[in-house]
């Protein structure tokens, strides 16, 4: 009898615990999401809600560059917070597919992390740059090298230059550290340095942090990482004599960078919701979120 009572008590306790933890987790998760989205730009969100008093509704579909995931993710989350009836979808298919989708009219806004080609602009597409992404070339703090030319950089990553002494450093085999296939940073780096599918790497790591850690731990390593993520544990190289900073990325003198574009088609009118989203991401309201997502805002 007594034992069953205890059993009953234990069961009741576990049930109520489950209830409590269930509620607890749901409240904390909802509060954290709202925190993360609004903390960086609470002022801008407040202002945008007051401006857009008319309620928008519908779906805005975006399609394209995988490297713009963080930026677009942050912006669309904020936009959906301000306009609760609008759903912004994002299809990470790659810049080429995104541009094609705008041409075909299968999405509202295309996302491209490269400039449009001539035949693409000829067919009536318009790219509006919302941000720039600087890719820092990093080496160990013990490295004697401070500057590389673009040609040297390409040759290092394709395995033509294998020793630091060939580029003015102390003798030592160069260890190239890159990102995994499919990474936006890798895609950006390889297209800018013209090393696509030709890189000879000794490590392929899955995050910016891991690349920085690996470069910091090996005196002969070189790697690349998003400029915003680089810290003092590694040394940032200047390329063709230009040190990457927010300013040199913005004025274009630092060349290891790429634009984050939103692509629309001339003559095709956007839906009210899509136009509002377009206006939002190209306005200065979006700057804080873009910076927080690791890119350099341009508007």
């Amino acid at each position, binding site marked *: 009898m007594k034992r*069953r009572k205890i059993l009953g008590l234990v069961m009741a306790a576990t049930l109520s615990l489950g209830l409590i933890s269930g509620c607890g987790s749901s409240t904390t998760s909802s509060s954290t999401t709202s925190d993360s989205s609004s903390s960086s730009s609470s002022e801008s969100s407040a202002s945008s809600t007051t401006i857009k008093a008319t309620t928008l509704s519908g779906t805005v579909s975006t399609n394209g560059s*995988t490297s713009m995931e963080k930026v677009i993710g942050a912006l669309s989350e904020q936009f959906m917070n301000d306009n609760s009836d609008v759903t912004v979808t994002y299809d*990470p*298919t*790659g810049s080429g597919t995104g541009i094609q989708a705008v041409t075909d009219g299968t999405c509202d806004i295309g996302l491209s992390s490269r400039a449009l080609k001539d035949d693409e602009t000829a067919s009536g597409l318009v790219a509006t740059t919302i941000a720039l992404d600087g890719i820092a070339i990093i080496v160990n703090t013990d490295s004697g090298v401070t500057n590389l030319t673009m040609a040297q950089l390409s040759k290092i990553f394709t395995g033509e230059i294998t020793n630091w002494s060939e580029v003015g450093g102390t003798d*030592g*085999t*160069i*260890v190239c550290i890159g990102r*995994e*296939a*499919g*990474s*936006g940073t890798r*895609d950006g780096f390889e297209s800018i340095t013209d090393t*696509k*599918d030709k890189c000879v*790497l*000794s*490590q*392929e*790591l*899955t995050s910016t942090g*891991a690349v920085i*850690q*690996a470069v910091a*731990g*090996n005196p*002969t*390593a070189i790697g690349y990482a998003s400029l915003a993520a680089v810290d003092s544990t590694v040394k940032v190289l200047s390329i063709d004599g230009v040190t990457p900073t927010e300013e040199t990325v913005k004025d274009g003198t630092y060349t290891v960078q790429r634009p984050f574009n939103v692509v629309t088609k001339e003559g095709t009118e956007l839906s009210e919701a899509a136009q509002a989203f377009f206006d939002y991401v190209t306005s200065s309201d979006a700057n804080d979120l873009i910076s927080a997502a690791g890119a350099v805002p341009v508007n």
Partner: protein
Amino acid sequence: MKHKNLALFEQVMHGIFFFCGFVTIAFVCFISVYLIISGLPAIREIGIIDFLFGTTWASTASEPKFGILPFILTSIYGTAGAIVIGVPIGFMTAVFLSKVAPKRLAGIIRSAVDLLAGIPSVVYGLVGMIVLVPFIRVFFHLPDGATMLAAIFVLSIMILPSIISVSETALNAVPKEYEEASLALGATEIETYFRVSIPAAKSGIAAAIVLGIGRAIGEAMAIIMVAGNVANMPSLFSSVRFLTTAIASEMSYSSGLQRQALFSIALVLFLFIMLINVLLNLLLKKKTK
């Protein structure tokens, strides 16, 4: 009245037990079916020969290649390396714990082994990345320490706890009379352990080894941090990618055929682990006979 209640209680508990057992089976079935369904299309598209025996993996190249032979061989070599280092150490520790060590010392070692088993794999990876990788780089005069060797070291430490505890249990289960008879015939203690106790416990020890293999081949987190993850054909001092790390490293950004191919890798890995489990079951069955 009371009797009736008790019977009802029994029934309810039986129901609960049945349900729990059923949930486990349902999950196993669900995962197996899901893996097969999502893993087969890419294999069909790539071709099973090109997939299993292709030596180049370039999933995002303009002409993508999906050959996973480097991953399969790396997983096999890496696991074999871990067994070569881990089994002798683990096995000797088990003999020491079961037969030689004084009770107090055995207790301390046993809790250390338990602690080792409880360390999350990401911690092994982190320590490996910060301590072991630079050490290998300096010690072997390599340009980079993130190599298969680093992965093997990490794996061999990670499989120690299962090898030690399973072989110790097997050794403890050897009847005292065997050893006493051997000692009475004039054999020394060491002779007795190696000629009598260990042969008597051999199927249990084999099970320990297979368990270690299973643990090593399925590990991803720790080795993704130390192995370098480049899809090279395996060699001791080069950066390599295992079956597990191939899936983990590309999953987040993959799309289309690349993603499907990752599921196919998972299917191959799953078959490997099934094979190991079947082997383990056979060994354990033999033991109970």
